[in-house]
């Protein structure tokens, strides 16, 4: 409930800012904003689409023209950012993704009068660059705990994680997920009196774009008895879910288990509403929107902003988001309006099939994370991930 209440507070603040913004700051109606992505573009129904969603919403709200620039290769990051900055037309240029970090560091120095923002990078420290990071470890702990308890409840002894490229941001997902799994095992034993020993299967696929690799990794995990698989690689979730769907079809079923756990966006609507148990929502849209909004309001400043469970940047998917993201799916052309009723019904039935005490336990963990009673590893995991893997083993 705490998360929900916080989210309402954030919404109210955002609403106030929206209404009052034009009177407080210097509104730049009719301006332009640029969104520069890494190799992935629209259509991943996850990380990049969330970036676009935030930019689209901000552009519509503040009457701005949005130019999106997708990169063709790793050598494009720098010139794409430079080209945008050199025009001098953009009120803000937003880089979406960790992989743009080096290029952003250089361009921010090269164009000191241009406002920039970057998602998933928190260590550059430039006066004209807003750096937006997320507490993915906290959200991943929640879905890890949920996953372990649901898997144990359904008689599975493994949960999986299909990850993308091995970057420090993804270590945060892995670390939190590991912690959550162990917490969930302990909780399951405490409540049911039965020993739960759900283990972890994990794989870094080395890609954020090759959907087939997600499918292959998921198939391997299902074959080893995984009760659910956490998608931590944006578009690869489309492949993960395909593997799960085919696995179920072979058994003549449509609904999970096994399930997928979605990432970044609320992906619960995928898989007909009953194959994605929950999603670890990382509100990239919220980050991009806030960055644009700060420029419109005249409050933009360089520095690091951390978005997490306490300010609506990270959350586990609930029913209130489902309708919103069914719209997102319809917008992406993945489903149509006529699917809405069936997906919603399926989703409600799927969640109802999980015992209430499990949801209560997840809420309990969320509350403890929020109050600081439970500390989830790790802030910057690149140098600690080996230790975390040892402390919270497979």
């Amino acid at each position, binding site marked *: 409930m705490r998360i929900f209440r916080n989210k309402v507070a954030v919404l109210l603040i955002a609403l106030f800012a929206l209404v009052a913004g034009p009177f407080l700051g210097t509104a730049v109606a009719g301006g332009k904003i640029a969104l520069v992505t890494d*190799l992935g*573009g629209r259509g991943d129904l996850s990380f990049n689409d969330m970036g676009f969603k935030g930019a689209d919403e901000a552009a519509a709200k503040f009457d701005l023209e949005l*130019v*999106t*620039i*997708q990169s*063709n*290769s*790793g*050598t*494009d*990051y*720098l*010139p*794409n950012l*430079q*080209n*945008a900055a*050199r*025009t001098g037309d953009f009120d803000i240029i937003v880089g979406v993704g*960790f*992989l743009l970090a*080096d*290029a952003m*560091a*250089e361009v921010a120095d*090269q164009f000191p009068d241009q406002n920039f923002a970057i998602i998933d990078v928190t260590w550059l420290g430039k006066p004209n660059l807003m750096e937006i990071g997320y507490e993915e470890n906290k959200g991943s702990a929640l879905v890890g705990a949920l996953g372990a308890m649901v898997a144990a409840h359904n008689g599975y002894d493994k949960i999986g994680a299909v990850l993308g*490229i*091995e*970057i*420090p941001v993804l*270590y945060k997902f892995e670390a939190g997920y590991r912690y959550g799994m162990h917490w969930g095992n302990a909780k399951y034993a405490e409540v049911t009196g039965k020993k739960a020993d759900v283990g972890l299967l994990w794989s*870094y696929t*080395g*890609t*954020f774009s090759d959907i087939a690799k997600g499918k292959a990794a998921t198939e391997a995990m299902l074959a080893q008895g995984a009760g659910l698989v956490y998608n931590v690689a944006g578009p690869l979730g489309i492949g993960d879910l395909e593997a799960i769907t085919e696995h179920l079809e072979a058994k003549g079923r449509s609904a999970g288990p096994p399930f997928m756990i979605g990432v970044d966006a609320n992906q619960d609507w995928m898989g007909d509403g009953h194959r994605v148990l929950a999603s670890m929502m990382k509100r990239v849209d919220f980050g991009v929107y806030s960055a644009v909004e700060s420029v419109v309001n005249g409050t933009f400043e360089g520095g690091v902003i951390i978005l997490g469970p306490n300010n609506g940047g990270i959350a586990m998917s609930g029913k209130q988001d489902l309708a919103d993201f069914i719209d997102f799916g319809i917008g992406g052309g993945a489903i149509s309006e006529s699917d809405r009723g069936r997906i919603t019904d399926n989703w409600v039935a799927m969640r109802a099939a999980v015992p209430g005490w499990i949801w209560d336990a997840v809420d309990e963990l969320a509350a403890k994370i929020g109050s600081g009673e439970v500390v989830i590893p790790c802030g910057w995991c*690149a*140098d600690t*991930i080996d230790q975390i893997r040892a402390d919270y083993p497979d």
Partner: protein
Amino acid sequence: MHWAQALRKYLTPITESVLAGVIGLAIGAVIMLGYGYDPGAAYVSLFRGSFGSIFSWAESLANATPLILTALTFAIAMRGGLFNIGAEGQLYIGALAAVSVSLIHLPSPLHLIVALLAAMVAGMLWSLPVAILKLTRGVHEVISTIMFNWIAHFFAFYMIANVLTDPIRGEKTISIAETSRFARILPGSSLNYGIVVAVIAALLVLFLLWRTTAGFELRVAGHNPESAHYAGISRRKQVLRAFLIGGVLAGLAGAVQVMGRPPTYALVTGMSQVANLGFDGIAVAMIGRNHPIGIIFAAIFFGGLMVGGRIMQFSPGVPLELVRVIEGVIILALAVPELKRIFHFVRKRFSLRRQSHGS
């Protein structure tokens, strides 16, 4: 009338290419019209973006740098009658070798030279098994180079994630040492002195092919294997020459890319800053008629097309996917004259062989 002959020799391919380019642009325009984008505005952006300012020139030349080298790899084999599509893998290995040299400390110009040499040797060694397989087991080079490309791909992934890994940022290798980097020619752009290496390499290949006995033998072997055999030119030697020199050039391409191209100066998981440069080199070689000078111009054109394509996303707002289709159409059209020549040549050789078998 010697000059008139020479003029015709160069004028014909240039006219062909210009015509092919115009056809490619026209098809691209029709496609854009079909999707509701203004082709006029798009092409203005394309050309202004690629060659309209000093910065766009710099970016086009920076893109051309590795392509000149990988195109030479393909061209030198093609001149010897071989299809070497292994530049892609040799390039990864060359890049890895260049990064490895940054594990040791050396003074400034020496460090850079050692890194380049290491990349050249590594590329050459990676190319060697292909030549050996062809000579001893008769394995066709298209098959073996494709396989070696994949081996190099996964080997590079392993090395990035486990051996050469940056201790603070696990997604990339250690960075190339400052002492081993190419300086930038134009500050704030991607253009660096790596292009000098590429152009020198092209001139050396030009000299090799047309001013040395080895080059002459290679060209004869490629042009007419029967008469080469009759003249006592060793086929074994030509195959080794074509693949080993090709490997050196491709290895150099990988090195120049990681040592010169800002801002990362490292291989990143996914290898997106080097991936496909080997395959793009084939297209560049086709457009440049497998001639070193033609390749330099073709690479600059190709590089410019990529840079200008980015700008098409800005001004008429053509999405990247469509930009790539347009680029592909233009490249394909430009490659048609050379492709036609190669098909014609292969067919002639095939029918010759059939005749000799029949008699």
